[in-house]
């Protein structure tokens, strides 16, 4: 069973360990920016990443459906769900592994959001097809937020 939405596009934000402070703020900002462009978003993350978002947005102004990361991987691997774009948050090697997996099993575009102290090292590990948005953002989200602002209109209309 493949579920797709009639009309507008669907995105997923794939979130791993919320160890780097900018992740939650950037995720809420991206959910808002996608919603403004008519893109419906789901968040797939581990429990801590999901809880941080749920606590920050209790009335769900920005946050829509949320899903456990392992369940999300199973659902796309088994072709139960499909999405138009996947935004994968990456600050460590595990993030690169999740992005490669999502790219390989989904067949839909992957946009890698790379941040943290080791953003260049992580960006160099990525040799599979995806769009990379990278900045040294650890406590200050603005470098990556500005890059998202530059790239998002192109992503939404071209991918």
């Amino acid at each position, binding site marked *: 069973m493949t579920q797709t939405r009639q009309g507008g596009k669907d995105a997923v934000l794939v979130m*791993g*360990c919320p*160890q780097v402070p900018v992740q939650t703020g950037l995720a809420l900002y991206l959910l808002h920016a996608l919603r403004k462009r008519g893109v419906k978003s789901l968040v797939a*993350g*581990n429990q*801590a*990443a999901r809880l941080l978002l749920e606590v920050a947005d209790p009335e769900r102004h920005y946050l829509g459906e949320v899903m456990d*990361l*392992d369940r999300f*991987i*199973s659902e796309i*691997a088994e072709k139960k769900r499909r999405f138009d774009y996947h935004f994968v948050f990456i600050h*460590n*090697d*595990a*993030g*690169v*592994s*999740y992005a*490669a*997996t999502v790219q*390989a*099993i989904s067949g839909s575009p992957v946009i890698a959001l790379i941040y943290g102290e080791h953003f260049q090292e992580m960006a160099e*590990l990525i*040799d*599979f097809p995806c769009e990379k948005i990278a900045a040294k953002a650890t406590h200050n989200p603005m470098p990556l937020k500005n890059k998202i602002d530059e790239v998002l209109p192109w992503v939404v209309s071209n991918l």
Partner: protein
Amino acid sequence: MGCIESLKYEIILRNASFRECREYIRANCREYLDVPPGFRIFDKHIIGVPPISIGFDGDTITFPYTKPCYGTFLMKVEDREEAEKIRLSVAKKSK
């Protein structure tokens, strides 16, 4: 770790990179097979950057297991049935 936690496993590497796991398997296991990301092993979809190597020493399987906060663990589990299942599944796909 879901059902993997219920297995009798040995951890060979902790908080490793996907590349270190691949190199370890290729250098230390008697045989290895490459599988794509999402390949099912012990009822879990394997996470990683291709090529993902799975090692075999007889019925003992060595494979990477990734958790978002802890990086990748390289694990060793003895399981004849699963080893056979993986070999058959990879052979079928490569035909």
